[in-house]
């Protein structure tokens, strides 16, 4: 049972990493508490579902969802966050909450209040290492997460665009003096981050076989918590935090059997970590 629970924990961690990835990038460049990222995630799930019903190709609909979410992300950045950057951080946070509530309601009004089924199943093989075995859907989500992580790593460490993105995240003003159009870089980062959120929405939609208006309400705070715990937009930190939280929750529920809800356990763990590392897991200073 222990091995199955570890596998469950790894899969949960992969789900968190997948949903958090985009937010980590966005957070890195703008440092806004982007609650509405979870709205983009749900938007991706809905767009993917509709596209799938028309196109009948899963991978094509995934692409459509990512493109639409990228566009939505740029809109949010240009319209909402960039004009508010010089203000106290709480202002964009409340604006973001408003946007998120409005998005959830818009999904319900347009697509109806009931959860929608994806009506597709991606066949995948079950991966394992010794006695540790992931089920087929768990393997799928784990593989996709790793794949996206790899691609992102390549983009950030091997391309000029990636270099500009990292530089902007570190110090936008200095980067601008080197002739980098940081506004463009911020928008591009938002586009990529939001496309990743859209992809997460589609994949989790298929993984759980349901898409519903308030599907973003848990990722809305959970992903933020993971990003911050990881060290404020530090990508390896976020991934580490995702797997740590996924495993901690699952093992505390499944092996130690503490009768306490998942989120509360996760937050207890987070607060403990922050007491020892007040700048996050891989944060500096």
């Amino acid at each position, binding site marked *: 049972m222990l091995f199955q629970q570890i596998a469950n924990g790894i899969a949960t961690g992969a789900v968190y990493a997948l949903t958090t990835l985009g937010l980590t990038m966005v957070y890195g460049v703008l440092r806004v508490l982007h609650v509405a990222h979870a709205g983009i995630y749900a938007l991706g799930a809905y767009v993917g579902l509709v596209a799938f019903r028309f196109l009948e190709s899963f991978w094509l609909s995934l692409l459509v969802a990512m493109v639409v979410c990228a566009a939505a992300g740029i809109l949010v950045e240009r319209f909402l966050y960039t004009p508010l950057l010089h203000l106290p951080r709480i202002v964009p946070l409340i604006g973001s909450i408003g946007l998120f509530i409005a998005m959830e309601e818009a999904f319900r009004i347009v697509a109806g209040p009931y959860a929608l089924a994806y009506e597709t199943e991606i066949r995948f093989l079950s991966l394992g290492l010794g006695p540790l075995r992931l089920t087929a859907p768990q393997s799928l989500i784990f593989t996709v997460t790793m794949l996206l992580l790899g691609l992102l790593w390549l983009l950030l460490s091997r391309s000029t665009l990636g270099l500009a993105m990292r530089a902007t995240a570190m110090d936008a003003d200095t980067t601008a003096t080197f002739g980098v159009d940081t506004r463009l870089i911020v928008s591009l980062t938002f586009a990529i981050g939001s496309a990743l959120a859209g992809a997460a929405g589609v994949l989790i939609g298929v993984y759980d076989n349901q898409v519903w208006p308030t599907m973003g309400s848990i990722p809305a705070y959970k992903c933020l918590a993971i990003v911050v715990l990881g060290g404020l937009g530090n990508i390896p930190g976020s991934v580490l935090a995702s797997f740590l939280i996924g495993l901690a929750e699952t093992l505390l529920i499944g092996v130690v059997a503490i009768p306490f809800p998942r989120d509360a356990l996760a937050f207890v763990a987070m*607060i403990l970590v922050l007491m020892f590392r007040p700048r996050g897991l891989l944060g500096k200073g």
Partner: protein
Amino acid sequence: MLSGYLVTVLITIGIYIILALSLNLITGYAGQISLGHAAFMGIGAYTSALFYTKAGLGFWPSFLLAGLVAGLLGTILAIPCLRVREDFLAITTMGINFVVEATFLYIPFFGAGMGIGGIDLPHFFGQEISKSGYLALVVLVIGLMIALDRWLTRSWIGLAWAAIREDEEAAGAMGIDVVRFKVLAFALGSAGAGLAGSLYAHFLTFIMPVNFSFAQSMVILSMVVFGGIGTLRGPIVGAIVLGALPEISRPAMEYRTLVYGLLLLLLMRFQPGGILGEHSLLPRSWRKLCTAMQNGKTGQ
């Protein structure tokens, strides 16, 4: 004579005013972002409910104990909050909210998922007070909160908070005991939330853990920022507008929550200081109007 419906809505708004004013002490004046204010409202509500229903204490002692216990726990829970700043603080306070809600939800002593019922309206000279009487009590507490707010902002404490809010390091270097003033903000703010929680519990007569969730914290914070954070009038007006909005928007039926979200979004986008913030449109034009009128008078 006010109708029962109107009184009900006014009591709800009044409780939110107390909550918004108390959060404003922590987040507005002392500049410590808190995403878990509902936790202290819940602690107050549960303290009051337990003392009233299980210990058989009357309303008044329960009410005061609610403020006291919430203030005490606010002081204790401020300790982990001292180690972290900004977004780390936001996540820590958010976490406190989840843990507190889960404690009410999973521990049978707190009624668990069944909630606590039978928390009546207070009695006054052996008679249950009327709804209007209760509204008067709420208004009285608001009055005390306003007085406290005025006194704090005009005292050394208010200045120290402002210094910490603007630049914590500089404040420390100037000899301000940052830790003490931060803890004081959390203690006072939490005590205020505890009193509001008690009023809430005795008004609803039945409480459940979900009433004090993270979502509730967001509602309170939205009110503070919506009206104008760090001012006295802001949280009050924010609580009035956002507290009344669910009732005013009733005719919009299934669009009413959408209206709420859009209003928050657009106001923050175009009036980021809140409707009555220092630099917002309404106060600015009002001041202009006042000066114009004054100039007109002197010109005569």
